[in-house]
């Protein structure tokens, strides 16, 4: 009798544990079992296109390198949410520190609190272990583009060292595809990436080729990136195209870009 009761209570306990903590049962930190929302970039891209249709002035926030700074990321999200003037948010990559599945899920869940649509790029830390597969499942392909008003946003995977020539990074085939299929309505282009040319992580043999490709995009305004964890503005190729680096989220800052038909300006916002 006592044994039966015990067995019953153990079964009950196990069932309770199963129901209570489904996501606490994990095969491995790198198991790539994605729970919750997926395909975020594609959905955001269509929301951004819809919400900015016909708009001349586009304003977006650019954050990056939020890895293992969950508290700071939450603060950045509430600071961006507090503003009424942001059309959308771009995350420059490195959402995770180790590429672990739950890191990317946690970052996604924090960023999903943004009122604005948002997209996330692939950072070099996101490539570790099974991170790249998980990032692709949650956000989508690592090279993508979307439009906001009459501006084209090209988001590129530039984490060359992570691939060790196993895949074309940066993908010139993708760039050619974008260059040849840009609709006529596009006036300007902003290129976002995680790693800038001439960084150790970049394939610097093709740095100038890369820039030559970017110049074929209509009305190239600037290139924005993260990775270096500090605010920086450089004319890397001395061709008038500025490479603008947003600080990591631990530095309590992000960039806000305002694009008008005449050009663009950016501002470093502290929170």
């Amino acid at each position, binding site marked *: 009798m006592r044994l039966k009761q015990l067995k019953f209570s153990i079964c009950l306990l196990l069932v309770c544990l199963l129901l209570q903590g489904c996501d606490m049962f*994990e095969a491995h930190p790198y198991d790539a079992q994605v729970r919750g929302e997926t395909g975020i970039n594609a959905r955001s891209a269509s929301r951004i296109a819809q919400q900015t249709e016909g708009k001349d002035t586009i304003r977006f926030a650019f954050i990056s390198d939020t890895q293992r700074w969950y508290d700071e990321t939450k603060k950045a999200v509430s600071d961006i949410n507090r503003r009424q003037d942001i059309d959308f948010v771009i995350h420059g990559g490195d959402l995770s520190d180790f590429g672990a599945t739950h890191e990317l899920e946690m970052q996604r869940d924090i960023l999903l609190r943004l009122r604005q649509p948002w997209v996330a790029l692939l950072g070099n830390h996101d490539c570790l272990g099974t991170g790249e597969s998980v990032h692709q499942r949650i956000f989508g392909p690592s090279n993508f583009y979307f439009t906001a008003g009459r501006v084209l946003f090209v988001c590129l995977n530039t984490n060359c060292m992570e691939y060790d020539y196993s895949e074309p990074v940066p993908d010139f085939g993708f760039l050619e595809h974008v260059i040849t299929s840009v609709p006529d309505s596009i006036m300007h282009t902003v290129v976002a990436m995680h790693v800038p040319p001439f960084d150790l992580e970049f394939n610097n043999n093709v740095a100038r080729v890369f820039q030559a490709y970017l110049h074929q995009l209509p009305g190239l305004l600037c290139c924005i990136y993260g990775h270096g964890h500090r605010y920086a503005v450089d004319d890397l190729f001395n061709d008038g195209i500025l490479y603008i680096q947003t600080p990591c989220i631990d530095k309590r800052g992000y960039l806000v870009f305002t694009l008008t038909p005449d050009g663009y300006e950016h501002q470093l916002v502290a929170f």
Partner: protein
Amino acid sequence: MDMNTNWSLSSLLALCLLCVPSSSHASCDTVVIRSKHERRVERYQHAWSNLIPHYSKVQYAGGMGLVSLGIGWDYGRNQQWETDMMLGLIPRYSSDNAKLTFTLRECFTPWRFPLSASVHAYPFSCGIYMNTVFNNEFWTTEPDRYPSGYYGFSTRVRTHLFVGQRIKFLIPDRKRVFSNSITCYYELSTCDFYLISAVTNHLRPRDYLRLSFGLKLAVF
């Protein structure tokens, strides 16, 4: 005669003195030659028999695979120490392939409370396990293409800490097939990745604690 007796007595004594040790020596020799080998064989067999696993385990989740199978040894005065070796399987999920993992675990279970003659409760156990993934995507030290210390951690080897509870059911003699007892356990664990994230942030426990449960089937 006297001399003779003396001689015979002394020779008898000498013989006895010689005989006793020599006979004991002789018997010892045969015994030693036989038993030395036998004892060596015995020692050899005993040493290797210590390596016969005392139990097998099956575990669900816990960062070592969705399902893991293992063998292990318990030792110590009250069998409070346990060393396990487990092989686990991580399904493919969103990654490129399924993965096999290997885990080495040390567990300490200090207290035992008999609930009845055949049921024992172990209210607390704790320990550490290290897990490695058999897959080329993971590295122990960074590949040569990175400058040394670029990432500064291993993606292949994870260290987990855990606490848990268990309950042991002794199987009555007549019902024993292979196991003499079954232990049900659950563990609450965290790994190095989660621990460092939890220490530097305000996270919910479900973000850095992981549950697992399993069965231990004791052979002897």
